[in-house]
């Protein structure tokens, strides 16, 4: 698989699903293109104007805590983000991101600054920081989740295999 390339958008610790996509926009959840215009709005209102296809969200610990709304990883993906890097993820968000085919990578993120150019090889498990000439490795996904991610998400996975496998 070709490496993912883009710029880092840096966020802090404990980015909740309310900051990712606020509950007040629940009326837009059946109109995903409109909903996605509000991605990350309460964390960084400029994000949606600046993000370009391929870019990365780079955050601290416990990214995605809170609600089970799968719209959270969905709007991030629709905004063009190709992967989320964080020191740790909240459980439901982590699973939802993989189920939507959006890589959620656990790695040290302190050395990555806002705007750094990154290249990520999912096959090699490596993040290259082009701006700083550094590399970082990320924690491998458990095989069950890797297989789901490789099929592009849970529903495509089930449609292909007809059942869950571990």
């Amino acid at each position: 698989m070709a490496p993912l390339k883009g710029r880092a958008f840096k966020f802090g610790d404990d980015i909740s699903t309310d900051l990712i996509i606020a509950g007040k926009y629940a009326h837009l959840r059946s109109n995903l293109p409109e909903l996605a215009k509000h991605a990350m709005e309460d964390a960084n209102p400029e994000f949606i104007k600046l993000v370009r296809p391929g870019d990365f969200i780079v955050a601290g610990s416990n990214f995605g805590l809170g609600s089970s709304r799968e719209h959270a990883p969905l709007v991030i993906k629709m905004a063009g983000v190709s992967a989320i890097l964080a020191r740790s993820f909240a459980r439901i968000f982590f699973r939802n991101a993989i189920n939507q085919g959006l890589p959620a990578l656990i790695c040290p993120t302190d050395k990555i600054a806002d705007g750094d150019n990154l290249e990520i090889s999912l096959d090699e498990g490596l993040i290259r920081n082009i701006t700083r000439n550094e590399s970082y490795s990320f924690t491998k996904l458990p095989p069950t989740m890797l297989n789901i991610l490789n099929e592009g998400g849970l529903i495509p996975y089930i449609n292909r295999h007809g059942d869950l496998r571990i």
Partner: protein
Amino acid sequence: MGKTISEKILSTKSGSDARAGDIVISAVDLVFAQDTTGPLTIRQFKSGNKQTLASPGRTALFIDHASPSPNRQLSNDHIFIREFAAETGCLLFDAGSGVCHQIVAEQLARPGDVIVGADSHTVTAGALGAFATGMGSSDVAVAMSLGKTWFRVPETIGIEVTGKFARGVGAKDLVLHLIGTIGADGATYKALEFMGSAIDDMPVWQRLTVSNMAVEAGAKVGLFHSDRVTAEYLKSQGRGKEYTPIASDADAVYERMIKVAADRLEPMVSMPHSVDNTTTAKSLSGVHVNQVFIGTCTNGRLEDMGEAASILKNKKVHAGVRLIVCPASKKIYTQAINAGYIQAIIEAGGIILPPGCAGCLGLHQGALGDKEICLSTANRNFKGRMGNPGGLIYLASTDTAAASALTGVITDPREVL
């Protein structure tokens, strides 16, 4: 080697010797979604090749988050949900029935069940000894279709609570104290299992409050043993025959144990903007509040209505404070009317909302204005949670909320009890 409650339930439901760290495929006994996650769940279900429910009688859809609907878009989502329920024959709890987690506790959850819901507070049913956890729409859609899901069997953190709670201190203070101690990610991917003399005596309505907030420490489940208290509760709901005892083994392996002395706990408050940002109510005395919200899947039960009514009876809510009270289910609402609680709350100046999630997630019925402060009995105080990133949310028990509604400032309830 003995097993925790999680290991026991997942062993039974996966037909294997499940141990912490294992990945298992487990049968699912109850699967549900609500009106803000349901439409995506239904669309994911319909994009699957197999479009029949594994168990229509154990699949439920709830219209509770926007109940009744505040706008045409959500009204159309509700139509979509009702049509799906009619097509598939699954259970539908329409607007006015109450919050999904309360109805699951009253009518659907059984000890030993594996329950998955498209709502993070699905953990609430852990109070009845069910392995209940929140998942996203794709996972729930697959569970609806296949009747199973995959889990990593969680390590368990044991929480031993001994002694007796002082007057004005209870389950909400315990769980806020716990989250403040271990942090908002202190139990991520783990199970919490509650035990000890204070837990043995704890009634189900309080156990539900504790399990409900397990997810605020990141936990996958918040489990109580199924015991005589559970049996009494199920009997009171007309489901006595659904009782089965569940307990962890004496030699079960815990990742760690946390001990809490109930008698040393004080009324606790979470400050903006995170649940683990806790302190005592006493140390915040004098913080002015614009709105007090009593309700939700955390504290909208009959006994919460009773606590609020006993503090407010024959008194008046402080001028300039909006007191919003929302019973968590139709059953609770009816019982609270019969008990005189609702009249006492209204006469004190409270506003009663129809059973549902109300203002908790910022959709309607209590959105905050800029710089407004809300003291809420809900489970989350994230920035923007109640419809406005410029609002400030403090979380506390029903006693603390009702006392503060009288004084207009955050108040240790022991001052008015």
